């Protein structure tokens, strides 16, 4: 091109930007990459985030146990795949690993074929320990029944809870909106994950949220009045619910992770539980999370770095200092109550919004 400055070491733009040997198959951010370099890019981004779980940080014979919740979606499957590789390399090199994975599948009963899929996952990555729990188990966790009982009483008396119908769907049917239902499900799922992790003496939880998902959560939580919980709930190593959370996929976009699933041999595609496409999207059953998902899907297409920047910016906020002994916490979501709840409330504003949309008065 005339007038355009050529870099001193000429880069062959028809070849992969990194290895300059293979034909590019994908453009990552601005770089055309071949499949091999792209695969390396993905795994490097993830493993970099696993720094604190290197072999040298584990006492010999004392592997650290980490809980990996699997949704069986593309993100959690890619995380499982890369960490499986990471562990084999650790074992190959040093004869031991820095950590072990306990993989948990929580069945919300809403997606067909998940049980069979879970079996296939176990077969393919046999080196981990697996177990599954129904989401409705969260309803019997300590404190939950008392907290949610007012909702159960809201159901008509001629329709006695449980026995015939699923208690969870009965409970959800009493909530005021799709957003409330999605929020409560998410909180229950997190509660169950934390409970399972503590029960099995796991040291931390590894979540498979991509940058894109974390950006969605940043704006969604902001829209739900929970902005103050963001630094502690999406920061690596923070423990707002009793044990540390890590997000090893935080530097990858969702679209990158999805591209990766078809690169792996044999393909991960048939190991992935697809979201059931929502029938007739109306405002009535759109949730705040759906809205943010749509929004960032479009931002991700054109402005991927802006997505990542949202997450980075949130990460720069200070985690509010807690005075553990004196601080009261929301009984549903664990958020500190002081300044974030009405007087004498056991729930924060965000959770009150879940249970009934308009504040009293």
């Amino acid at each position, binding site marked *: 091109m005339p007038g355009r400055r050529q870099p001193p070491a000429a880069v062959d733009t028809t070849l992969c930007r990194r290895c300059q040997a293979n034909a590019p198959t994908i453009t990552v951010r601005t770089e055309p990459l071949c499949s091999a370099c792209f695969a390396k890019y993905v795994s490097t981004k993830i493993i*970099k985030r696993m720094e604190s779980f290197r072999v040298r940080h584990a006492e010999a014979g004392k592997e650290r146990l980490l809980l990996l919740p699997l949704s069986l979606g593309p993100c959690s499957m890619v995380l499982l795949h890369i960490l499986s590789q990471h562990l084999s390399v650790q074992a190959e090199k040093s004869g031991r690993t820095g950590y072990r994975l306990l993989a948990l599948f929580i069945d919300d009963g809403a997606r067909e074929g998940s049980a069979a899929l879970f079996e296939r996952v176990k077969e393919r990555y046999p080196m981990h320990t697996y177990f599954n729990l129904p989401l409705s188990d969260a309803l019997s966790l300590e404190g939950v029944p008392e907290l949610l009982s007012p909702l159960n009483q809201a159901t008509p008396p001629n329709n006695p809870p449980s026995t015939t119908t699923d208690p969870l769907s009965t409970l959800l049917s009493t909530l005021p909106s799709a957003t409330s239902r999605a929020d409560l499900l998410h909180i229950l799922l997190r509660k169950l994950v934390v409970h399972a992790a503590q029960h099995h003496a796991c040291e931390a939880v590894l979540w498979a949220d991509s940058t894109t998902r974390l950006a969605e959560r940043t704006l969604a939580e902001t829209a739900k009045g929970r902005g103050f919980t963001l630094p502690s709930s999406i920061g690596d190593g923070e423990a707002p619910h009793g044990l540390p959370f890590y997000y090893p996929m935080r530097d990858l976009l969702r679209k990158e992770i999805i591209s990766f699933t078809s690169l792996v041999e044999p393909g991960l595609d048939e190991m992935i539980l697809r979201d059931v496409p929502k029938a007739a999207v109306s405002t009535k059953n759109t949730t705040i999370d759906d809205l943010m998902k749509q929004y960032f899907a479009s931002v991700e297409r054109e402005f991927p770095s802006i997505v990542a920047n949202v997450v980075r910016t949130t990460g720069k906020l200070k985690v509010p200092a807690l005075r553990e002994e004196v601080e009261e916490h929301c009984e549903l979501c664990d958020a500190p109550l002081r300044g974030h709840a009405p007087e004498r409330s056991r729930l924060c504003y965000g959770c009150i919004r879940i249970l009934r949309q308009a504040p009293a008065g």
Partner: protein
Amino acid sequence: MPPHLCQLCHTSRAQILRPKNHARLCAPCFISTFEIEIASTITTSHLFHPGERIAIGASGGKDSTVLASVLQTLNERHGWGLDLVLLSIDEGITGYRDHSLEAVKRNSAELGLPLSIVSYEELYGWSMDQVVAQVGRGGKGNCTYCGVFRRQALDRGAAGLGVRHVVTGHNADDVAETVVMNLLRGDLPRLGRGTSVVTSMPSAVGMGTGKEWEGKGRVGEVACTSVKRSKPLMWAYEKEIVLYAHHKKLDYFSTECIYSPEAFRGSARTLIKNLERIRPESIMDVVRSGIDMAKLVPNAEGGPGSGKPEAVQRDAGEDAEGGCGGSNGEDAGGEMAQMERKLQQDEQAEEDGTETEIKIPTKAVNGQRHDRDTQTSATAAALTSNVNGQDHDRHTHPPSNTTTTVPIRTKQEKKSNRKATRDTPPPKQRLGQCERCGYLSSQAVCKACMLLEGLNKARPRTGIEVGGAGG
């Protein structure tokens, strides 16, 4: 179904369903509730002191028209003794501001409040129409010029009136929009300020004592210390402001600014509108989140633990907030694309710098790939060595156990220089005066003067008026 009765008086038929809290009210009860809530924002934040002279930034639009009307009403009702004046900025936008200024003039007469108008043309030598003709509708957002210019114009206009406090019509939707926009732009300092009800310049710094702009028109000889800004409507929903204006039969100009808003604002605005449709309360929730997050911004002026509202320092550009309501952005995305490019450069620099710090994964991945890939080991070695070569140049890490071969220098080396620039700490925000116009500025030359310099350079010497939107 029988008509609902007003939840407050239980006698009249409810006409209004409040988006804020789903309350069903009759029109008179809605009007008094709306006024009570504004009064409560004013009193709980101790916005005014008795007898204070207040300039109402009046654009002729619904927000400032409602603000003027409510303040006038409350001032009389509660005997606050405020000395209210209207202050308008004439940006010089034909078909928009000329008409809205007519609305302001009618309001001034109706409310019996004096009106003062400051024009860009007079102050800067450039009307917005001329600015846009010069820079085009694309490129740098028109709103950027408008916002920077408006801020100074308001301060100078206020100073000219001997006023230390300007109230603006920013509503809850605007503030929510700003919160979202600052998250999207990753602008922490503004995230720390955007939700405070009062912003203020630090006192004891003079203004307007230096040379004035070299262009035409001078306001000159204005000296004042601190001009406070506040937003009494920051908890009022836009929809309710429209309802209030409707039921009070207020006279306002409803056309949106014809020039394009910043892309980030446009994007945030759409998102807020969609959120409101899903859960109307979320506008308030975003504002609440914004206030909470402001306390978590490192070194935030509105620091934590302050029950009392504090006057938080503001900066240029903030007056663009909700300033123009246009959503007809022709260059929407331009600003985002610009930021995307900058972020990508930073990421690339980061990539070049930090990828070297992770030895094990680099090797692990390479090692793993060998058995599956068709890629030659020479390529892999070249990659590894390249990474190491870089490492030695800039870091003092002990040599890694990665296979080191002859360092091969590639373009990655060159790019890594950018990291040095990135690592230098951002310049400390210190407020001084602009060396050209004397306006408060953290830089030697204020933003308005920078923009003017660019404009004046490009202006044809003959001074021929450029017609139409060129470029």
